[in-house]
């Protein structure tokens, strides 16, 4: 008897290399992708939760007490002076608008925290990073990427001295 060869398998060679149908592979991939999207959705909900509760967990300490910045004579009309408050590293600028008008703002742009500068000719505050502009009287955003006003400090002038005092808004919030 002649030895018979093993019969050829009915499947072609590619089927052994790629044993899973395209539609079935897609089926698995789409299921997994959809599940992944649901996890992302949960993550975004958790992120929103964090934003909501953050103010409660880490309340902003309001400014307490009065702090002397400088004398009036030290800042000319249209001039500015940078300062910080004790116990904090936040930079602030004091602006002399003229006509005995003084303002103090946080010196961080509300877009991406670049340092902002007062432009006396325009009467505005400029952020050079992305050409953002703020009103020098109110701190409101006028132009460019920033959406929120610059945080403002409450000032009090006694004789020649300029003081930072607790703002009535903060006292209400606390």
């Amino acid at each position, binding site marked *: 008897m002649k030895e018979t060869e093993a019969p050829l398998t009915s499947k072609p060679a590619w089927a052994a290399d790629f044993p899973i149908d395209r539609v079935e592979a*897609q089926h698995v991939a*789409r299921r997994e992708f959809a599940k992944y999207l649901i996890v992302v*959705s949960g993550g975004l909900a958790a992120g929103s*939760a964090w934003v*909501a*509760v953050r103010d409660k*967990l880490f309340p902003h300490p309001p400014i307490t007490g009065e702090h002397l910045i400088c004398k009036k004579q030290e800042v000319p009309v249209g001039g500015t002076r940078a300062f910080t408050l004790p116990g904090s590293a936040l930079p602030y600028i004091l602006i002399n608008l003229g006509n005995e008008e003084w303002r103090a703002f946080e010196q961080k742009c509300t877009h991406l925290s670049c340092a902002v500068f007062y432009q006396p000719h325009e009467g505005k505050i400029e952020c050079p990073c992305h050409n953002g502009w703020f009103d020098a009287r109110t701190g409101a955003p006028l132009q460019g990427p920033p959406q929120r006003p610059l945080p403002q400090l409450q000032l009090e002038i006694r004789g020649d001295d300029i003081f930072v005092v607790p703002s009535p808004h903060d006292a209400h919030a606390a």
Partner: protein
Amino acid sequence: MAATRQALSQAHPAKTNVLSVGLISVLILIISLQIWLLSASVNTSLGGHANVAWSAFYASLALFLVSLVTLSYLPLPIRVPIVVEREEAFTDAALAWRTLAISAVSLALSFAVWFMWSAIAVKLNDAGFGLTKNQLFWLTATPVILGSLLRIPYGLIVSRFGSRRSYAAVTLILLLPALGTGFAVQDPKTPYWVLLFWSAVTGIAGANFATSMATVTLWFPKQLQGSALGINGLGNLGVTIAQFTIPLVIGFSLLGGSEASPGAAVPSIHLGNAGFVWVPIILICTAAIWFGTKDYPAEPKTLASQLVAGRRLHTWVLSTLYFLTFGCFVAMGASLPLIIKEVFAAAPGGAPNPLLFAPWAAAIATVMRPLGGWLADKFGAGLITSISIATMAVGGFSLSAFLQPDAFGQFFAVILVICAAAGLGNGSVFKIIPLVLPKEAGAAIGIVSCLGALGGFVPPLLLGWTMGRLGSPAWAYTGMALFAILCLAVNGYFYHRRNSPSHC
């Protein structure tokens, strides 16, 4: 939904793939909305308007829940055979329901006896005792701690000595604390250590919970156990009964001999009645258990075989879940006075009276318990536990939003929602115990209820600590929400997940 899944599992993949694409588009839409909400809330909260952030969070959460629902419509990975659960036979229904009724009433009695010291303690100094605040605190706390610990042996005895004998015995020995306390508090010259001794003996009443639950679980088939254990849990109302009865009965003389002469300047208080009033009820309940129920016809199990429950993972998983659900509503009520003092003292119209609000928290949780058990029987204990814990997580998280003096109404409403969810959870968690630990149910009930009852002690301490250390109770509530989310994951893995071996 089940029909949809069934149809999907039989459809050709080419067809279900189109559906997947549809679901993926919906999910991408949902995620885009969520990203928009998140960026809006970041922007406004940096600008100092936190309220927008809360609305954005609820919207984002709702969208996440919608995306979770789409999970149910995803095509199945494999063609899952549909298993039809066979219902267990329920032969001796009349006896079972009678046992349940007797057991629930006796449990209410036990809870009333257990909490008699908290009603007595507030009157002790009026009756001529001169005790400090600290001494009074220990008179009320000792029975709670001891009662919780004793639940472990009390759960064990049922399958060893039989349900009728065990339950009748533990009910009858309630005479000891009732009479002892009665005689001790009658005489204002009783030394403090004697009072403390009788308050410790009163602890045995709280352990009856484990015996009672272990008795009821024997008599009911699987598909009714949630409802049965939930109804038995109504015995918790005994606490409320004690709070209303005791102030009433100490007003007049039950046993004739009164030590305060009529017409004296001191208003006559018959404190002994707070103990004596339970004596006839104890005798009636013991008789009802002895003559009205039977020992469950099963081989008595050895104590060693029951102690195995301590080595089972399920016992500890269920203890964690019950620690959350039971501890939570106890803590919500117990911590209300502290929170009101710290946060709502400046509420418009004066600080709310905690005594007026605290009892509602416990009452709503107790009433929701049978509902939780019944829903668990109907829709699956895993699902109901998940829903209740998720509600607790969102509720605990939302409490932080109302920590302002003018928001007590909303704050208390959220507390009630949390307590209702906790009550549902109590009912459905207890249904899981006999399902996953059928052989050691008695011992497991003892351990789980012991840790749950102790759970009421921890959160108020935590709340006080976070307020002292971190400056805001928001930390404690957020911590509770995170613990609830952890429990949600644990429950999902063990009891809710479709493919889990202990799915129920």
